[in-house]
C-alpha cells in the first residue's frame, strides 16, 4: 500500500467517522426533549419505588422497621414475598391466602418470622412457593400454613388457579402504571413523593397501605360492624361456606405432595384452621350439604391424614372466645390481628412446636 493509498484510506475512514458522528449527534439533539422526558419519568417511577427491582425493595425495607411496600397491579405478590424470604431467610414462614395476613412477626418472637400470606391458596401453590423459596439451599424450620376444610373440596384448585403467579411485573408495566397516575393526577403524585422515604410502590404511596417488613399488611383492619357482618357477602359455595359431600381424593393427593416436599426439605408443617364466627359455624354444622366439613372435623380424618403425615394441626375453627364475637372479624373469612396473636401464642406455646423450633433463631 502506497502512502497515497494510506492517505486515501484514512481520509475515507475519517469521513465515515464524521458521518456517524453527525448521525448520532443530530439524533441525540433532535430527540433530547423526549429523552429528557423519559429520564424524568424513570426518575419519578424509581423514587415511587414502582420500577425498583424487588431484591432492592427488600434491602430498602430492611433499612427501617416502618417501611412499607405495595406496588404492581395487585394480581400477585409472590415475586415480592419471595424476594423478602430470600433476603430474611426466616426460621418460621407463614403461608396462605389473605387469611394468613393477620400474623405478625411479634406474634412468633423470638423466632425470625416472615408472613408470606396472600401468595398461595392451594396445596399445589404452597408447594410451588416453597420450591421457589428453597431453591437456593435455604429452608425455613417451620411453615405455618392455612389448612381450611374447603381446600379439600373437589374443584377448589380450579377456582383459584392463576392467583399465584411468581412472574414479577415488567419494567414497562410498572412504568406505565406511574405514567397513568401522572396522567390522571400529576400534582397529587408529585406531592406524595416526599413520603417515598418510608413508602415504596405506587399503591402504597397513594393509599398508605402496604406490606410491612414482616410481610403482614399495615392496613388497619376494618372494625367489625355487627350490622355489616350480618350482610358480609358470604355466598354459598365460596369460602368459608363451601358445600360438598366429602373430601376429594385428588385434593388429598395434592396435600400429600405438599407434605412430601416439605419433608424432603426437613421443613416442619404447622397447619392452622383459623376461627370462624357463629354464622359460618352454625351454617356448616346445620347443613346436610356440608359433608366435607364434618369429615374434615372428624377426629378420624385428622388422625389418619394429618397426624399420620406428621403435620402439627391446630383447629381453631370453633374457638369459644370468638365464636359469638363478630367484632373480632373484619369479614367472614378474616379474623383480625388480635385473634391471630392469640392463635400464634397458642401455637408457639405448644410443646410440639417448641421441639421443632428448639434451636431456631
Amino acid at each position, binding site marked *: 500500500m502506497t502512502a497515497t493509498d494510506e492517505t486515501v484510506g484514512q481520509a*475515507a475512514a475519517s*469521513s*465515515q467517522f464524521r*458521518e*456517524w458522528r*453527525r*448521525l448520532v449527534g*443530530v*439524533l441525540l439533539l*433532535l*430527540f433530547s*426533549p*423526549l429523552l429528557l*422526558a*423519559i429520564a424524568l419519568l424513570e426518575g419519578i417511577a424509581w423514587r415511587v419505588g414502582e420500577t425498583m427491582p424487588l431484591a432492592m425493595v427488600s434491602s430498602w425495607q430492611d433499612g427501617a422497621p416502618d417501611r412499607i411496600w405495595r406496588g404492581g397491579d395487585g394480581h400477585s405478590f409472590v415475586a415480592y414475598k419471595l424476594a423478602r424470604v430470600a433476603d430474611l431467610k426466616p426460621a418460621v414462614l407463614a403461608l396462605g391466602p389473605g387469611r394468613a395476613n393477620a400474623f405478625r412477626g411479634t406474634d412468633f418472637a423470638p423466632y425470625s418470622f416472615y408472613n408470606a400470606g396472600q401468595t398461595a391458596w392451594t396445596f399445589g401453590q404452597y408447594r410451588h412457593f416453597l420450591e421457589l423459596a428453597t431453591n437456593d439451599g435455604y429452608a425455613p424450620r417451620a411453615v405455618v400454613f392455612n389448612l381450611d376444610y374447603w381446600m379439600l373440596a373437589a374443584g377448589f384448585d380450579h377456582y383459584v388457579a392463576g392467583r399465584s403467579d411468581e412472574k414479577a411485573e415488567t419494567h*414497562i408495566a410498572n*412504568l*406505565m402504571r406511574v*405514567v397513568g397516575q401522572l396522567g390522571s393526577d400529576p400534582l397529587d403524585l408529585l406531592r406524595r413523593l416526599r413520603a417515598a422515604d418510608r413508602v415504596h410502590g405506587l399503591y402504597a404511596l397513594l393509599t398508605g397501605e402496604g406490606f410491612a417488613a414482616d410481610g403482614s399488611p399495615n392496613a388497619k383492619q376494618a372494625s367489625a360492624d355487627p350490622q355489616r357482618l350480618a350482610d358480609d357477602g358470604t355466598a354459598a359455595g365460596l369460602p368459608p361456606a363451601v358445600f360438598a359431600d366429602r373430601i376429594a381424593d385428588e385434593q388429598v393427593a395434592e396435600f400429600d405432595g405438599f407434605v412430601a416436599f416439605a419433608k424432603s426439605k426437613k421443613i416442619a408443617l404447622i397447619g392452622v384452621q383459623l376461627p370462624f364466627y357463629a354464622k359460618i359455624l352454625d351454617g356448616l354444622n346445620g347443613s346436610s350439604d356440608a359433608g366435607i366439613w364434618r369429615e374434615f372435623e372428624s377426629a378420624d380424618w385428622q388422625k389418619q391424614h394429618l397426624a399420620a403425615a406428621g403435620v402439627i394441626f391446630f383447629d381453631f375453627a370453633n374457638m369459644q372466645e370468638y365464636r359469638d364475637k363478630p367484632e373480632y372479624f373484619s369479614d367472614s373469612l378474616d379474623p383480625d390481628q388480635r385473634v391471630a396473636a392469640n392463635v400464634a401464642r397458642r401455637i408457639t406455646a405448644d410443646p410440639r412446636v417448641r421441639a421443632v423450633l428448639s434451636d431456631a433463631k
Partner: protein
Amino acid sequence: MSLSDPAFLGFFAVVFVLFYLLPGGTSRLVLLLSASLGFYVKLVGGYTAVLLYVAAVAYVGGSALQRMAAGRSRGVTFIAALLAILAPLVVFKYLGFLADAAHIELPGSLADLALPVGLSFFTFAATGYLIDVNLGLLEAERNPLRLGLFVTFFPLVTAGPIERGGRLLPQFDLNPRMSADRAFDGLRLIFIGLVLKVLFADTLAVPSAEVFGDPESALPLDKLVAMIFFAFDLYADFAGYSLIAIGCAKMLGIDVQPNFRQPFLSQGIPEFWRTWHMSLSFWVRDYLFMPLRAKWRRSGHRGMIAATLISFTILGIWHGAGWQFVIYGFAFGVLAVSSLYTLKYRDAAYARLGVPQAVVRVIRAVITFFLFALVLVLFRVNYLGDAWLFYRDIFSLDLLRNIWDGVGYALFRLGDAPELPIVTGYWADWFLIGAIVVGDILARNGVTLAKCGRSMHAVAYNLGFAAVLYLWMSSSVAPPFLYYKF
C-alpha cells in the same frame, strides 16, 4: 416480529451498524442474507424451507433459461419453472378453497397447513424475475447469494413492496458508504411509517373490528362509519408498513419503489389502482394485463374489457382464497371499465352543470373513496354473507333514518339518543382520518416533512415518537398487521 415492533427496530439497528462496519460487497451480502434468513426463521420457523425453495427455483430456472436459445424447450422450461415457483402458493393458500369448490375433502395434513408469512409477496417477486429473464429483459443472476437476497430481503419479504429483479439486483453491489443524509431520509420514512402504523392504524382498527366482528348487531350508520374507518385503517397500516420497509432499505443504500401515492385523492378507480399498493397493481399490469391486451389487441374494446376484468380478478384472488376475493377483484374490474368508458360523459355533465374543476376533483375523490371502501368490505368480512349484511344496511332507508335520528338528537335534542356506539364512541378517530387526508393533500402538493424547518422536525419527531412509544408500552397485544395473511 413485524416491522413496527420495537424488537425489529433493535434488530435493524444492529444490522445497520454491522453493515457499515463491514467492507462492501460479499461480506455485506452475506450479512444481509443471514439477517434476512434469521428474520424469517424467527417468524415462521420450519416454513422457511418454502422461501428457500422459491429462491432456489428462481435461481435454477433463471440460469437454465439464460443458457437456452429461444424455442420450444425454452418455453417448456419456462412453464415448468413458473409452475414450480407458483406451486407453494397454490398448495398453501388456495388448495383448501379449490378443494371446497370441487367438494373434495383434503387429508388432515394438507388441510392444516399454515400460510407462510409473505408467501404471496415473495412468490410474485420471484415470478416477475423469472418472466423478465424469459423475455430477455433481464440477465439471469449468476450469483446465488444475490438472487437469494432478492427473494428473501428482510424489509420486503413479509409484505413487499414487490420489487423487480431489474431494479433491485443491480443495487446488491452493496458498496455505498455510510451517509448521514441518506440515513436521515430512511429514518424519516421509518418514523412516518411507525406513526401511521402504531398511532393511526392500530387506533382505527378498534371500532371497525367491533362492527365487522358482529355485523348482525350493528346499526346501518355504525356499519357505514366502520366501513370508512376500516378503509383508513388499512391505508395507514399498509402504507405505514411499506414506508418502514422502504426506509430500512434506504438506510442500507438500497432504493425500493414506493407503494402508495395518496390513493384517496384519486379521481377514479383506474387512477386509484395506480396509487394504491402500486407494486402489486403494476406487477399485474406488466405481467398480466399488458400481455393479455397485446394478445387480444385485435378484439378492440372486448379485448380491453376482458383483459381488465381478468387482471383485476387475479388481483383480487391474490388477496385471499375465497369467493369474496374473486368478487372483490372482479368488482374493481367492473368499476375500472365503467370509469374508463363513462369518463367523457361525466366530464360533459360536469361541464354542462358548470361545476368548477376544484369541486369536480373533490366529488371524484370522494366517490372513488366510497367505491373503494364499499368493495373493501369484501376484503374484511369473515364470510360472504356478512358482506351482504353490510350492503343491505348501507343501501337501506334505515341508514337515512339513523342519520336523521343522530343529527336530530345531536343538534336539537329531538327524540332519544340513538344507540350508535361506533359513531358516538369513536368520534375522536375522525381527527386521525382528517390528519391522514390533510397529510396526503399536503404531500400531493409537495409539502412534506422533509421540507419542513428544524423546529417543525423536532416537534413532529418528539411528539410522534412519544405517541408511538406510549402506544407500544401500553399495548400488550398489538392488532395483527392486516396484510400478514398474504
